[in-house]
């Protein structure tokens, strides 16, 4: 697949955006700090500067980048697997698994793991559980469209179940679940970052290893089989990466929608390519930048209004996708 000069320039720009946004995030906030404060506070773990910069701002901005990258890569993989631009990490119902278990934990008191991180664990277990259900279906069902429908049904079924729980829940737990479902990047502690980062990097390496079959999958499963790939195995790998990435994000930050749908579509249209080498790097850098920018807006406007991340990603993403689709179809 062709790597044109414009692709490389776009990826380099996207790659440079990440450190710039990272630094801006560390410097800006209720308490503005200088670049020298950032480095000097690093050696002084007891100071207020350290707490603000490294314990509060740093995990949040890194998480914003990981959320954006994970959801965008998961969206890209789903859209390629299902040959459908409307596919996303949520369509398969993987996210519904997280929501179901978190709803159970917050509204009925049922929990898979009794601790302060009950919600995180519930969301992770839910995502993996539903990921496993989809994997089992993927072994039986040959058609990706049927599999997509199974995912949608799983989501609808779960939503109905959650709605039932909401109708019976008391006000406090209902509020608690609603807050979780709005999404937040603030729930990650510094010591949780290494394991999150490691999971993300392993998933990304596996995704990079399947770039060549992904390029073939663009032409459909039948073609991919004709060119000699084991399509069933490929589907399992793609769904596994999606489950891990979606589960990771949902567990720590709640169900953040729209990023997985918007970023890969915008990128494909902007770069005019199906080269999954370009698209994979692009979804990582622009997905990360997108959520980092969203979070920057949230932080800068926090004095005026508290905007949940899930609300902002949809508010920005939806009109952009519609505008692009209109332009493309016109």
């Amino acid at each position: 697949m062709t790597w044109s000069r414009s692709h490389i320039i776009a990826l380099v720009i996207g790659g440079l955006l990440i450190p710039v946004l990272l630094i801006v995030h560390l410097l800006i906030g209720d308490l503005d700090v200088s670049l020298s404060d950032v480095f000097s506070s690093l050696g002084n773990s007891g100071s207020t500067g350290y707490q603000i910069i490294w314990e509060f701002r740093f995990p949040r901005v890194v998480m914003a980048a990981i959320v954006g990258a994970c959801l965008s890569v998961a969206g890209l993989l789903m859209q390629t697997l299902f040959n459908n631009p409307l596919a996303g990490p949520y369509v398969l119902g993987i996210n519904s698994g997280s929501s179901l278990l978190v709803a159970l934990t917050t509204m009925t008191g049922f929990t898979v793991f009794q601790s302060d991180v009950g919600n995180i664990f519930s969301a992770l277990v839910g995502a993996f559980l539903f990921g496993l259900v989809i994997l089992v279906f993927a072994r039986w069902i040959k058609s990706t469209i049927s599999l997509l429908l199974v995912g949608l049904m799983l989501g609808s079924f779960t939503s109905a179940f959650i709605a039932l729980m909401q109708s019976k829940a008391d006000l406090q737990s209902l509020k608690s679940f609603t807050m979780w479902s709005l999404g937040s990047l603030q729930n990650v502690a510094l010591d949780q970052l290494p394991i999150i980062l490691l999971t993300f990097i392993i998933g990304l390496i596996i995704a990079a290893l399947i770039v060549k079959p992904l390029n073939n999958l663009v032409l459909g499963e039948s073609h991919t089989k004709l060119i000699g790939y084991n399509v069933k195995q490929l589907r399992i790998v793609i769904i596994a990466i999606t489950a891990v990435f979606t589960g990771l994000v949902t567990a720590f930050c709640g169900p953040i929608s729209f990023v997985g749908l918007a970023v890969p579509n915008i990128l494909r249209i902007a770069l005019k390519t199906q080269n999954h080498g370009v698209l994979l790097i692009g979804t990582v850098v622009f997905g990360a930048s997108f959520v980092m920018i969203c979070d920057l807006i949230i932080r800068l406007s926090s004095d005026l209004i508290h905007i949940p991340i899930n609300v902002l990603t949809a508010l920005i993403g939806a009109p952009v996708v519609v505008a692009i689709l209109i332009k493309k179809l016109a």
Partner: protein
Amino acid sequence: MIRLDNISIGYAQSLLTTGSIELQSGNVYILIGKNGAGKTTLFKSIIGQTSLISGAIQIDSAPLTSLTTKEIASKIAFVPANFPPVDYMRVKDFIALGRSLHTNFFGHLSNKDEGQIQNIMKLLGILDLKDAFVTDLSDGQRQLVSIAKALAQDTETIILDEPLAYLDYSNRRSLLEKLENLAENQNKCILFSSHDIEISNPDKHQFLLIDPVKNEINHFATSTGKEIIQICFPKN
């Protein structure tokens, strides 16, 4: 070499049967039959995408069922009747996907791969389309691009489902000549389906004719247009 040993093909029930048929390299075989007679099903059976009801298929003396999808792809390239709907893919990238079996882990094209793709595009007269998006092509151009991808796969056998369907008369003749040259000069085994009896040439082609009465496929080393009509399209 592909050998069909008394196969019965179909889905819930048998659609067609054959006796023992051998398809040899260096020949062009035309599969002729009515609409819905089972031509595509036969092709899908040969490439291992549809199971046989009975009988066996051998490819280079190995049973088809013992071959992996990769081994089948290294021996047979298939050009489906429909072009896949795909945005933002340039002609050269589309054809390059046919080299997937030969390229490295990341799909990087070597100079040899690039050269081969270039030669194939020259052979089919589509070199000037190399940077065009496949969505901007006419049906006939897409057909040629699909065939180029199959040629890039570099297999001994190429099976084409209705390759002449979207082409005008001169392009049909020209493509047919190219397929004949591939069989003759590169010792390929070419098998394709067609409704177009006029294009058949008893001196250059062999025939697999589908008899709709007996539901069988029979191999004829040579046949005239009149015989083809009698066998494949009998009056009720």
